[in-house]
């Protein structure tokens, strides 16, 4: 035979979880219910003679030493600066920042190289020409080096009379200025 009150209240009574009013009510019930009294008596007896004594299991000294080694000494740290949450947040922000900085640098270098290449393609080459050889006498023609763009033949960088060069330059649409030699 079972009494529903044993399950609903008896166990809570034995664990001390009933309020004062509930405890008083259950004790009143106990005085009248033989089933609950028997259940409570058996449980308390088994608890004190069997459960508490024989359910626990001894540990070995080796296990105790291991647990002690890992747990006994808690590092004393400032609770504000080194709390777990703050530490994790700071570390996450640091690595995130590092990642962004790295990515930003990489993108900058790549774009810079691209920019330089584009600029190089647009800007005409600055052609190096040797300065015109100034003739020692007015009768000597002004000699200029001829670069590849106005070369008249397969030979390049040849010195030719300026008048000859002038004609060729005019043919290519370059405005010329008469230079009077004195």
């Amino acid at each position, binding site marked *: 035979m079972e009494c529903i009150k*044993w*399950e*609903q209240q008896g*166990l*809570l009574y034995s*664990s*001390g*979880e009933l309020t004062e009013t509930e405890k008083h009510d259950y004790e009143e019930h106990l005085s009248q219910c033989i089933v609950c009294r028997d259940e409570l008596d*058996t*449980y308390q*007896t*088994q*608890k004190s*003679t*069997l*459960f*508490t*004594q*024989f*359910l*626990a*299991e*001894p*540990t*070995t000294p080796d*296990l*105790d030493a*291991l*647990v*002690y080694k*890992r*747990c*006994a*000494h*808690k*590092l*004393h740290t400032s609770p504000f600066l080194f*709390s*777990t949450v703050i530490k994790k947040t700071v570390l996450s922000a640091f690595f995130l920042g590092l990642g962004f900085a790295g990515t930003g640098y990489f993108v900058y270098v790549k774009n810079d190289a691209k920019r330089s290449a584009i600029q190089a393609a647009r800007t005409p080459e600055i052609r190096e020409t040797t300065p015109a050889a100034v003739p020692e006498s007015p009768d000597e023609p002004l000699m200029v080096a001829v670069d590849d763009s106005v070369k008249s033949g397969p030979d390049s960088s040849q010195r030719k009379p300026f008048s000859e060069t002038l004609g060729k330059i005019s043919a290519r649409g370059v405005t010329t200025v008469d230079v009077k030699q004195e």
Partner: protein
Amino acid sequence: MTETEEDRELFGQWMKGDPTGFSRLYEKYRFRVFGFLMRMTGGDREKAEDLMQDTFVAALRNSDQFDPSRSFLSWIFGIAHKRTIDYFRHSKVESEHEQDTAGSVGSKIDSPDVRFSNQNLRSLINEAVEKLDPVQREVFLLRELGDVPFKEIAKIMNCPINTALGRMRLALRNIRKELEKRGIHGVH
């Protein structure tokens, strides 16, 4: 000073870096925690020892979550229970009925005529507990070894309190039946 207050003080010492606080708490409850883990792992000593270390390391790591109004023992048992559940989730565990009882805790069966020595009683009670349904065993061990209140057991096991009470009632009834089969009636 009540036991809860004393434990709270020892815990505070431990958290301040004084190893004495830890060693006194550990000395007080190690057999009960280990007994719980041994029975939850079906007598696998190696696993129980691993879980024992995991439990106290987890307690150290989550020390800021300890509620001083709560009993230290209940809290540590809650951690031990969680570590055990995680262990079962990540390992292949044979069904309770297929487990080799020869390797389990206290499997020796004595005839009712034999006088019950402490060792015999230990074996008998352990066998009775091992035969329980897993959820009944959990509630029973949390209550009897950990002194965990039923309201907390319900939270730990994520079930209504009436379910926890029902499981405990069935566990007590089944243990009593097993003990009576072996001639133990109303031990005093």
